[in-house]
């Protein structure tokens, strides 16, 4: 009895897991196609679909680009802003290609990582801080659009990247806003058409409504008529930039794996050798005694010999009745019918048809009916 219970338990757990999976898939359905954070088509909390749609409503021509090839073919003029989110996937070579092809426009890098910032200029620093709300308080003169009108706006995010350089004469001598921890969250790289924005969360669907985040985002991205929103694809990177996984692992892993494999082989050799050969049993011949009768039944069935079967059933019934009614074994069939009819107090005619009809049943159903009637007759005679 205890057998099925654990099985049912596992079944319930399995069903619950499937349900949970279904709910998860259903609820995350929208963000499923573009799961990248700050993707312009990602409606999830981390996505930036809200910003993209608002920009489109405002009349900005938003063009989403998802690979370096397409980006190269996109015409960038001085009325174009290039917004790059998900810069984790931006390889140095792709950045280089962008800087070359978008000389006319303005490139905004959102949340540039340390490695990327160092790639832009060796003197640049990027650190992650967790500030309170920041006021714009812009300094320096902006060489590019998008900085005017920021004054008086408050930026409020949980976490941002602060950009700084080594001091006077550094690459960040241009305009810089939202100062914090010795650097600023928004900075222009002097001599280039490059703007670094460290507070990417402010563009996200869930935080864009905090403080003046929305205004800041719109000014940054919507400063021009046209916005090319570039979402980097890691496969754009050139082959030599890809990080080999082997360089991340300790050096002893390879030889260690070899040694473990050898140990496994030894384990197999240890367990595979049994203590002496298998002992065998000379098996006896065993046949079910009833097998001959069964196979004869199958033979009747296959050949459809209903005539023989019906005759056999009737003869057996007659002999049984004769024995029950204390008639001689060799009694005439008519005598058996007569005795049975007298015994049961019924008419002899139907009994005679049942017991002595020589016509074979037309179908298997008829045969089954005949067998059942004979069995019932025998039972009645036995009882009565």
């Amino acid at each position: 009895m205890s057998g099925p219970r654990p099985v049912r338990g596992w079944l319930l757990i399995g069903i619950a897991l499937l349900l949970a999976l279904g709910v998860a898939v259903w609820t995350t359905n929208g963000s499923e196609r573009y799961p990248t954070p700050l993707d312009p088509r990602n409606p999830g909390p981390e996505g930036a679909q809200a910003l993209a749609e608002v920009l489109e409503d405002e009349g900005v021509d938003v063009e989403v680009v998802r690979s370096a090839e397409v980006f190269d073919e996109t015409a960038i003029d001085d009325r174009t802003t290039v917004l790059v989110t998900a810069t984790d996937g931006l390889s140095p070579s792709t950045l280089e290609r962008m800087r070359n092809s978008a000389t006319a426009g303005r490139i905004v890098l959102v949340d540039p990582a340390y490695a990327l910032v160092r790639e832009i200029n060796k003197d640049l620093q990027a650190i992650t801080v967790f500030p309170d709300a920041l006021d714009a308080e812009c300094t320096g003169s902006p060489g590019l659009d998008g900085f005017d009108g920021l004054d008086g706006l408050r930026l409020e995010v949980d976490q941002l990247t602060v950009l700084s350089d080594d001091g006077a004469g550094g690459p960040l001598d241009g305009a810089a806003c939202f100062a914090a921890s010795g650097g600023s969250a928004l900075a222009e790289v002097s001599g280039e058409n490059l703007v670094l924005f460290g507070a990417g969360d402010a563009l996200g669907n869930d935080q864009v409504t905090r403080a003046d985040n929305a205004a800041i985002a719109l000014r940054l991205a919507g400063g021009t008529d046209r916005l090319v929103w570039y979402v980097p694809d890691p496969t754009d990177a050139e082959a030599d930039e890809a990080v080999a996984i082997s360089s991340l692992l300790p050096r002893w892993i390879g030889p260690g794996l070899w040694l473990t494999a050898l140990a496994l082989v030894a384990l197999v050799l240890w367990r595979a050798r049994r203590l002496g050969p298998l002992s065998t049993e000379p098996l006896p011949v065993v046949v079910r005694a009833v097998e001959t009768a069964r196979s004869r039944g199958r033979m009747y069935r296959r050949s459809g010999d209903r005539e023989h079967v019906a005759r056999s059933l009737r003869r057996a019934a007659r002999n049984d009745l004769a024995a029950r009614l204390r008639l001689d074994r060799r009694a005439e069939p008519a005598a058996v019918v007569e005795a049975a009819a007298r015994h049961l107090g019924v008419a002899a005619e139907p009994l005679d048809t049942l017991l002595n009809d020589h016509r074979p049943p037309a179908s298997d159903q008829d045969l089954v009916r005949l067998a059942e009637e004979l069995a019932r007759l025998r039972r009645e005679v036995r009882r009565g």
Partner: protein
Amino acid sequence: MVISGRVPLLLLLGLAAVVLRPQPGTVLLWLLGVVLVIGADLLLTPRPATLRTSRREPGTVRLGDPATASLLVANEGTRGVRVQVRDAWQPSAGATANRHRLRLPAGEQRRLTTPLLPRRRGDLHAAGVTVRSWGPLGLAGLQRTYDVPGTVRALPPFESRKHLPSRLARLRDLDGRAAVRVRGQGTEFDSLREYVRGDDVRSIDWRASARTAHVVVRTWQPERDRRVVIVLDTSRTSAGRVARAVGEDAADGMPRLDAAMDAALLLGALASRAGDRIDFLAGDRRVRARQRVHGVRDVAARLQEQMADLDPVLVEADWDALAGAVQGLGRQRALVVLLTALEPSAIADGLLPVLPTLTRHHRVVLASVRDPELGRLSDLGSVARPTADDVYDAAAAQHELERRSRMREVLAGLGVDVVDADAAQLPPALADHYLHLKAQGLL
């Protein structure tokens, strides 16, 4: 050669070396070191051949009773050995806990016992003794399997022994030894004694009463010193597996041969107590066992010994040879009990032609193990909604039963008594028939 579980562990220890010197060469060096250590261990391993094994035969047990296989292991080398010994038997011998681990100093010997629990009747053989000798480090060892013959003989269980006391009581009634003296018909005159109330008046000996002051009755004792020949058929029909009783599954049942053995044992035990002499014969195409059991106390044990190694053979019985063997056992009139199956085709071809010869000299009883499955198959009334398959099967079964009852008539016409009963019922039924014949003085 074998390696132990310490070898993979030793190889894994090399991980420490690999971490300290992370180069492929380290792995090779470590592997080489391990192989060298194993080789050294192997060189120092005592040969398994320095152990001498001998066996004491477990002997004979009744099926279902435990036995013990005892193996003497002696170290004839000059060094102590650390060995594993496996005393393998064929699976049906039920050798559990047959792996032994022991340390044997030089020149000593140890007795290893393996419990056996035979699950099959017959001679069950030892499969071989495997000796695995370990080196001093326990990393590698040498293994060799030796053939150390051994046999445990499992006797047929004689389950019908429980019917013996009641049949013996009835035999004593016949015998006149019990308080109630029965006047048998056609039995042998025993003695005269004084009439007591309750005696049959027909047994009063008037002639003797006339000579004494009392009324004297004759008492009778059943015939003694008759011959009973039990013939066990081991041919193809005896291989059929039948259920023990109605309603049980044939898969849990036993071959007809085993049921017939049970019946033969009960009859043998009963007849020997009744003072008859018993001859036992078993065979199919040729005679496989022949035993005269005269004046022995435990007849059943002798018969069990004879039956232990009989197995059904898939050939047709040669009744000419078997009848010849019966005749060869003696010309004196005997009760010949043929334990075979009431299988019309087998009997018509083989047994019928020789029966007249047998019935002319002997009283012949044919005892057959009935298959309850056949009756169940033929009875459609027990099936709630019969299908066409059921009906065809029932017709075949009824046809078979019909042929059997005709064969019974033929046999009865030849003067052969037929005892046909289920496997569990056959031994008492046959014993009752024997007592019936004895009471009638028909032996």
